[in-house]
């Protein structure tokens, strides 16, 4: 079987930055699309300045997070305020299938590069604008960022303990919902274009997309007046259901028991200690009513074993258990992750070795794989102008000299 890229030949012009947009175009690029990332000499993608950096490496080409989210792309620096910069953009639009941008509402119009302009240049262009709450509405002009915006989606208040204030996900959770919806919208728009010949403009709001994951919770309020709240590690239908201490510093194992058969298997694995025979723990209902005590007793059993041992013993008898893995476990140890080749080690001319992720789905006939590591800042300005747009040497030199390109 010859393996090919699924999206070979697709051309994407990418004005997006930070996390959400770049993740979208990384997915497209790692599946074979040509992605041209537009930055400017005065405005690099802010993720280039985010930690962690490669030790010893400096500047705009050393961020681990940027490296992860920008494999397979070309980087070109264009001053979009310059009329001749806009001309370069329009030449790129002429040959593109998709334009993605994540500026605030109205910015592309001010730059005279909105959909009306793009459509004039290429009638069947697909352009998608992704913003936090949409192009319109009373909050559309409020500046914000993912770390804060994630609080609005309904899930942050579901993370943590009922007697404490909510916990905040370390990485903005909405930034990891929106990319999948943007990809779904773009792939569907390509299908629509194939069937009808028509392009389209799409206004996609991160907030609206993420509320879809909360649908039953909102319906529970509208229909029943219930406001769901965080429950620590409780989960109706399971008991025990929790996280237990293990041997070592900050080592934990998660255990979730749904059925009485699983409970019996857990008891047997624990060596059927006397306490398990108590009627307090006999059925799901009883166990649910005595969960605090149950958690303490199970914790006594787990604390002298490694998390890996507990997981192996319990999974061997069909009880759901798993290590609370850390970055170290994921990158260096987990044999499943290695088997699936989730992380790929790439070598970048400046940064050297770094990791990038592959999608969590495998397409056996068209496996995703980076075409090349992330681009250094402005690395492909010359390549894009001369090799892709066939710009003459004199014109290119002039545009560099006048600061239109960098």
């Amino acid at each position, binding site marked *: 079987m010859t393996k090919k890229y699924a999206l070979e030949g697709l051309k994407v012009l990418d004005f997006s930055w930070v996390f959400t947009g770049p993740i979208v175009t990384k997915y497209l690029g790692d599946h074979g699309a040509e992605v041209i990332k537009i930055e400017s000499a005065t405005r690099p993608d802010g993720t280039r300045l985010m930690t962690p950096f490669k030790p010893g490496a400096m500047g705009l080409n050393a961020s681990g997070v940027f490296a992860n989210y920008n494999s397979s792309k070309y980087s070109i620096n264009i001053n979009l305020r310059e009329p001749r910069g806009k001309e370069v953009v329009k030449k790129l639009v002429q040959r593109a299938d998709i334009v993605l941008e994540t500026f605030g509402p109205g910015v592309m119009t001010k730059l005279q590069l909105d959909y009306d302009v793009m459509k004039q240049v290429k009638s069947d262009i697909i352009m998608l604008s992704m913003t936090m709450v949409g192009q319109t509405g009373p909050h559309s002009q409020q500046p914000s960022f993912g770390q804060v915006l994630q609080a609005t989606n309904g899930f942050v208040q579901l993370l943590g*303990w009922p007697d404490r*204030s*909510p916990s905040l996900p370390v990485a903005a959770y909405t930034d990891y919902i929106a990319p999948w919806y943007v990809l779904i919208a773009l792939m569907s728009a390509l299908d629509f274009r194939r069937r009808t010949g028509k392009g389209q403009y799409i206004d996609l709001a991160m907030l609206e997309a993420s509320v879809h994951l909360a649908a039953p919770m909102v319906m529970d309020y509208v229909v029943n007046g219930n406001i769901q709240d965080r429950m620590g590690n409780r989960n109706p239908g399971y008991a025990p259901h929790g996280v237990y201490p293990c041997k070592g510093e900050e080592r934990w194992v998660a255990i979730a028991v749904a059925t009485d058969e699983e409970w019996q298997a857990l008891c047997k694995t624990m060596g059927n200690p006397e306490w398990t025979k108590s009627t307090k723990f006999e059925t799901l209902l009883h166990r649910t009513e005595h969960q605090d005590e149950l958690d303490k007793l199970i914790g006594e059993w787990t604390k002298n074993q490694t998390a890996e041992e507990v997981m192996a013993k319990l999974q061997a008898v069909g009880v759901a258990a798993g290590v609370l893995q850390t970055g170290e476990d994921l990158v260096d140890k987990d044999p499943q992750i290695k088997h699936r080749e989730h992380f790929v080690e790439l070598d970048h001319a400046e940064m050297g070795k770094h*990791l990038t992720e592959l999608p969590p789905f495998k397409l056996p006939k068209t496996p995703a794989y980076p075409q090349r590591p992330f681009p250094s800042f402005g690395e492909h300005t010359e390549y894009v102008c001369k090799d892709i747009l066939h710009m003459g040497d004199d014109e290119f030199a002039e545009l560099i000299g006048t600061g239109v390109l960098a």
Partner: protein
Amino acid sequence: VLDLTDDRGSFCGKILAELGADVIKIEKPGGDPSRNVGPFYKDIPDPKKSLSWFAFNLNKRGITLNIETRDGQEIFKRLAQKADFVLETFKPGYLDKLGLGYDDLSKVNPRIILTSVTPFGQTGPYSLFNSPDLINMSMAGYTFICGDSDRPPVRFSSDQSYMQSSLQATVGSLIAHYYREQTGEGQHVDVSMQESMIWTLCYAPHDWYLLKQIIHTREGSFWKRLGVTYRLIYPCKDGYVCYRLLMAQPGAEVMNDLIASMNKEGLGENMKDISWTTLSFTEVPQEKINEWEAEVGKYFLRHTKLELHEEAVRQRNVLQPVNNAKDLYESPQLASRDFWVQVRHPELRESITYPGSYFRSTETAWQKGKRAPLIGEHNDDIYIKELGFSRDVLAILKRENVI
């Protein structure tokens, strides 16, 4: 689209259905056990009244079919001949054993895309693990970084690994679809819930790979990085808000407007005359940050989420409310975009509010609502009208517990 998924994957078919695909949910005779997943309409536990089922099966048609019978398998293959996608969440190997795996289905329809969503993927040492959401979240490294430092780590009180992997399954299916439309070839899309959640971590793998450090543990309402801790979640009068002091960045001058509001209430005297745009987190001592955060916190405690958010919108500051279901439903932003839709449920004699379109397009529409199917609601449509079975045959299939 033939949708064999349980509650862990039904979101995927729902996303395709709202884009206009004809998604047929295939349940066991008697109904899918995920109809018993709450919450329930009027809090009545009843397989016909699950709000989760309603939400994640919107716009689908529904039939019953027992694919563990020989006739069921034959009928499924006939359906697969005309299908573009099959979605499933069984244990790896289950469909193969029934003669309905990818190899079998691609023989009757080489264009078919089979999308399988499982905790760890189809193969590998953990592929047969028993792994509900808590285990997926933990194995993905997500639980480890959530919660308060003085208590064990926690998971979201909501099955996010199912949601995330359903979204990824949709993306993978549509990329495979693009390729299929160019080449005529389908394939087997193999989705891992663990890897779907790893995608949401951002820092942890790179902190380890590049620095050999585990930086984030459980920081509760705070965020710690680069040696600085700052508060992100603050209690307010009626709940919580999310805010971060702005320093050393364009736009940080809006701090002065917030401080002016605080001054009117006798707060924030210690925050006057500071050049917020040029300050840096790493240059300001932690005690100073704590002191400012405590002062801002006093102001937030006197006001509601809504008041604080409205003020932030006016001042172009970044504060956001920590929304619960009620806040989302009452959001003026969502209302202004006519986000919510009403879907008729004739059996309940009412309409229920659902989230509506997450995109606005110049050409294409989000499919507005037909409620989720009743058990076997479209058996006649599909078995009689589309597959051409007679009523007699249908009666026999029913007697034999095939449908």
